[in-house]
């Protein structure tokens, strides 16, 4: 399977082949690419970045780790339901969102 690595701006062209019960990644130039190649063919994941409502406006948030690709929209929608009171940079906005074992972190930068 041919993939473009999305781990960094280089965008290596990966080739992922099955070998027994494991996958072998070639074309990557770092360990992140190998990890991505394997993950992408088994169960693709993505980081989610969006904004959450606060009492005075909006604040940027991210997931603490990537979530399954098919749950990205659910995560964005779930974050859309909350209103945060006085969020600070680095706060946990939602713990274990949708039971995915991933937290939502405030990235306001302020």
């Amino acid at each position, binding site marked *: 399977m041919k993939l473009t690595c999305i781990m960094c701006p280089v965008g290596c062209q990966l080739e992922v082949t099955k070998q027994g019960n494991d996958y072998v990644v070639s074309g990557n130039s770092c360990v992140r690419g190998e990890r991505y190649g394997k993950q992408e063919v088994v169960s693709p994941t993505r980081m989610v970045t969006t904004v959450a409502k606060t009492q005075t406006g*909006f604040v940027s948030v991210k997931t603490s780790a990537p979530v399954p690709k098919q749950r990205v929209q659910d995560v964005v929608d779930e974050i859309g339901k909350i209103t945060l009171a006085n969020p600070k940079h680095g706060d946990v906005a939602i713990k274990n969102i949708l039971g995915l074992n991933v937290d939502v972190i405030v990235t306001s*930068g302020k």
Partner: protein
Amino acid sequence: MRQTDVVVIGGGPAGMAAAIESARNGAKTIIIERNEVLGGILMQCIHNGFGLAYFKEELTGPEYAYKFRELVKKEKNITVMTSTFVTKIKGKTVTIVNSSGIDEIEAGAIVLAMGARERTAANILLQGTRPAGVLTAGQAQKMTNIDGKLPGKNIVILGSGDIGLIMARRLTLEGARVKAVLEINKTTSGLKRNIVQCLEDFKIPLLMQTTIVEVVGENRVEGVYISAVDDNYNFVGEKKFVKCDTVILSVGLIPETDLVDFADINTRTNGPVVDDFMETSAKGVFACGNFLHVHDLVDNVTLESMDAGANAADFALAGCKKGKKFCVIAGNNISYANPSFVHSGDGIAKIRFRLKSNVSKKWIRVVSKDEVLAKKFVMAGLPGEMQTLEVSREKIKGDILLEVEG
């Protein structure tokens, strides 16, 4: 009237890095930022992917800005002036205006770090009516990420710049329908990773060699006529109507040089001409970041701006000592090189450049009088990526030529 060693204009990633390095070199430094907080455009770039080169971790834009703001706070030599606008630069005197009124700052050196602005509909001569709903990718980004408002429901994006691609994903996740991304050229201007994770993940069509013929709509955008183009950008085939309420432009950036009528401008980058000390044609005035030339990664902005800040401090405190001045010539398959001039002497001159077309498994070298001064091997180089080569100044004895071998 205030006095300082170095004044840095612009408090984005370039300005913060320049100020930190200026202060660390012993110069009393003032940063002037028109926004309420330091951070610049990073504050609306809520996506991740920043900092991998510099911090070795993946950060969002606001997080990258936060880390630098904390570093700025630690420097006792730095004074930050936010919500402050520069209206004039004359010699090394900067006129500012803020809620306290108008004031002047007399500096030993100036660092210009005002960034770039987006090309607008007028810049690309977009035809048709002028209804509401035509905006740049950065404007759409601010509306969505800072103000929490959707700019539209059915969207056509013109240009495949990275912010356009990132906004395609962002707007889709917020419930808008991105009908297509149009790119007039044969190759995308955005990164491949963004084509994959922002368009392909969401099955958003990317139409290559296609552009908008005309915008249609009275008060609000009602649609666009689009057409394929040939290699010379002539329309070919029949134009097609695409119904939409919003057109987002992601068609490049131009350094914001309005205040800078006193320095020579590089016609290739639209930023100022600089030498290997990042000094412009105006003595004691330095430039860095997207104001100097449009970067691919913020990490590169940081590294470049640190050099500018250190040199500005050196100029203000001791006066830069430079050797003989020589030209930098962009040769085979080099789109442009910064700086335009280098000097002989001590230390290292960093040449930052971009390729004209894709390069695979080739050497890139710096040559002077038939001698190779520096070279590097490139496995796969793209025109969008910024490249760097370092040349030891003691080797520089004449004009230098930068070229891709073969």
